[in-house]
């Protein structure tokens, strides 16, 4: 008896839905949408709106309702979503005729939106079982890992009374989707408009490097460079948006690549990632030591920042004056140092060192005497200017205090002649 009554009500609702649809013309509008929104483009006089792919309704029903009745409810739900989303400023793009995407999982939904050139995808979903209708209105972001932007679901008796409830639920979901959209667009700093219609390609020579959206703590992985390139997941961003992609790889310095998106398909070329400096070699010379060369080595305890060093020099000291013969010096300094303030990869970096040194000296020209000195270097300042790749020009100023050993040639005190500092200039190669 109750089943018969329900069946009668369903038939009544089947009649009532078209009638109500006539009263609300947009309710059943679908293929008959205006041309301006068919392809997701707004007219020039209207603000650009992000396109939204409205998928076919995903309907599942049992024998408690006929197929036609289920379709009618599905169309009603879809029509509600169309109207509510359009009212919120979305430019509706209809899914092509045919079978709905199967299975209706977010990945497929996001991909479908991406392929349609839409920033969003909306899916009306309903199931009817034992004369009860459960429906949901879901809005997803476009992309490979489409995330649910907004949704509303409800369950009620599958009759005429379900229609206003559906409309109310759908409006709530549309409003939330619009809020999500507005927030995204506000963060991108762009006006409403159609998102880019392509997937960005990142070209890099750093095989295996990981690309992610550089968004601070909310970095989102985009993929890995393979065969010299990475086709990024679809990003529903407006043309003109400045995108920052963080490219990183173990053992190398991460690089942020910034690009402004254009209307046409875009390939972003990433500069080669620089290796973090774990070791460095240097060649140098300086005032009073021009007739010779210095060789330095640094091994980093913390790449790019903290290091132990050893540098040696061999040279002849000569003033070319009357009565002067060159004096041969060999020196070896060792200690620890650190780069300060400026990050790796900066054009100029500065740092400090401290250490000890040993100097041997011997006379030339027949008198063979060896002197051995020891000195402390409480502070050395150095500055490096990146020349190209891993090569930097380095200037250093070292303070050195001779201990005045009895075996030495250097008196106790600050070393360096008229200016009690040891200056060096040279090239450094970090690797």
């Amino acid at each position, binding site marked *: 008896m109750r089943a018969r009554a329900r069946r009668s009500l369903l038939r009544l609702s089947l009649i009532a839905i078209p009638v109500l649809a006539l009263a609300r013309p947009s309710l059943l509008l679908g293929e008959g949408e205006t041309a301006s929104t068919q392809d997701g483009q707004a007219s020039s006089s209207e603000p650009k709106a992000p396109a939204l792919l409205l998928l076919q309704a995903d309907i599942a029903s049992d024998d408690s309702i006929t197929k036609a009745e289920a379709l009618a409810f599905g169309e009603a739900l879809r029509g509600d979503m169309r109207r509510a989303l359009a009212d919120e400023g979305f430019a509706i793009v209809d899914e092509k005729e045919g079978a709905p995407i199967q299975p209706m999982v977010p990945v497929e939904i996001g991909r479908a939106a991406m392929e349609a050139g839409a920033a969003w995808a909306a899916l009306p979903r309903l199931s009817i079982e034992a004369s009860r209708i459960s429906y949901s209105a879901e809005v997803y972001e476009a992309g490979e890992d489409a995330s649910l932007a907004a949704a509303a679901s409800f369950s009620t008796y599958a009759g005429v009374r379900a229609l206003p409830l559906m409309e109310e639920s759908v409006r709530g979901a549309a409003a939330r989707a619009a809020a999500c959209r507005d927030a995204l667009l506000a963060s991108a700093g762009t006006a409403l408009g159609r998102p880019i219609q392509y997937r960005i390609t990142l070209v890099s020579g750093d095989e295996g490097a990981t690309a992610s959206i550089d968004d601070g703590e909310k970095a989102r992985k985009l993929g890995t460079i393979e065969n010299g390139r990475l086709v990024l997941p679809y990003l529903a961003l407006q043309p003109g948006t400045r995108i920052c992609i963080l490219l990183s790889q173990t053992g190398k310095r991460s690089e942020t690549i910034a690009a402004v998106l254009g209307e046409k398909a875009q390939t972003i070329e990433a500069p080669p990632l620089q290796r973090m400096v774990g070791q460095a070699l240097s060649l140098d010379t300086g005032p009073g030591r021009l007739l010779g060369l210095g060789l330095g080595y640094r091994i980093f305890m913390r790449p790019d920042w903290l290091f132990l060093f050893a540098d040696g020099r061999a040279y002849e000291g000569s003033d070319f004056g009357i009565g002067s013969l060159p004096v041969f010096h060999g020196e070896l300094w060792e200690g620890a140092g650190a780069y300060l303030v400026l990050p790796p990869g900066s054009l100029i970096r500065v740092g400090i060192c401290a250490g000890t040194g040993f100097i041997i000296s011997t006379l030339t020209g027949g008198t063979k005497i060896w002197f051995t000195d020891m000195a402390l270097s409480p502070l050395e300042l150095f500055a490096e200017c990146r020349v190209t790749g891993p090569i930097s020009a380095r200037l250093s100023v070292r303070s050195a205090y001779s201990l005045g050993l009895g075996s030495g040639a250097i008196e106790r005190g600050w070393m360096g002649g*008229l200016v009690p500092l040891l200056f060096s200039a040279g090239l450094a190669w970090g690797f």
Partner: protein
Amino acid sequence: MRKAKVFALVPLFASLCLSACSYLLDDPYGGFLQKAAAYADLGSALGSSQFLDGMMSAEAQTSTYLFAEFADPSGARMVKALDPMSLELAAFSGQGSPLTFCAATAANAEFVVASHAYGPSTLNLDTACPAGLGWLAADSTTGNNCLFPFVAASSQRLSFYVYDSSWKNRTTIQRVFSSSTENWQLARALILVDGSFAVLAFDGRGGTGSLRAARYPNLAAFLASTGPILDSASSSAVASVDTQQGSIGSAMGVPAWPTVDGLIALVSDANGVFRLARYGYDGLGEKDEYVLSSRPDAALYFESSGTYWYLYERSAGRLFRLRTWW
């Protein structure tokens, strides 16, 4: 006018270039090593003895020695003789002087070191002589031993003694230093390697003053002269040092040495940079210099030939024979 300005800048530019070159080339680790011709570790050889400022070379017949005065820890002074070329110690041990150290050659070709005379070949003690109280300048031709007392009786006049070659007969001579009123004191009097005679006087009143070296062709010419020592002898040459540029010490230990190539003086500037300046006998002032940077904790001595100079590092006990820079 404009050309004149440009030309006026030339010396400044040249000076800057020279300074830059000097800075780029100066050995940061003990520049004087480049001048070293010989080296001796006297600290090890002499043990606990200390070295004093006194260092003079003397030549008698075919022997030349560098005599150096030492003091042992008890304060007793002694003199050692070294080969001036190899800097090896000779078999000699003499008594030091209670005042400024002087070693010279007497008229009879004996070495006079402090207050004793020694045989020229054996370095054996011969006889005592009064030379320990002053600078000795002898003339083997005339047989005169002129002794210039370390301590002067007057600041205006120089009294000195002329002995015969046997040190028995003495004549006292008194001469004024200068016709001006400077307060001169005798700093050195010696026969240079070419036979000329040099008198070095120092005016150190008020912490400033000047050095003047008068050079006579020989001792006989000096003795024959009767005018003011420093400025009246037409045959002498005078070098002056503007001591306002820096300290050159007291009269007794004036770090200045007459050589045949000029007067060498250790001077310093306001920045505490010490240098050895050479002043010509032509009266034109400083000719060149050698920068030592900081005050050397060392005893210095310049041979009168101007070929070598000696530097003894007191802290390390090392003696260097160095080539001169001119």
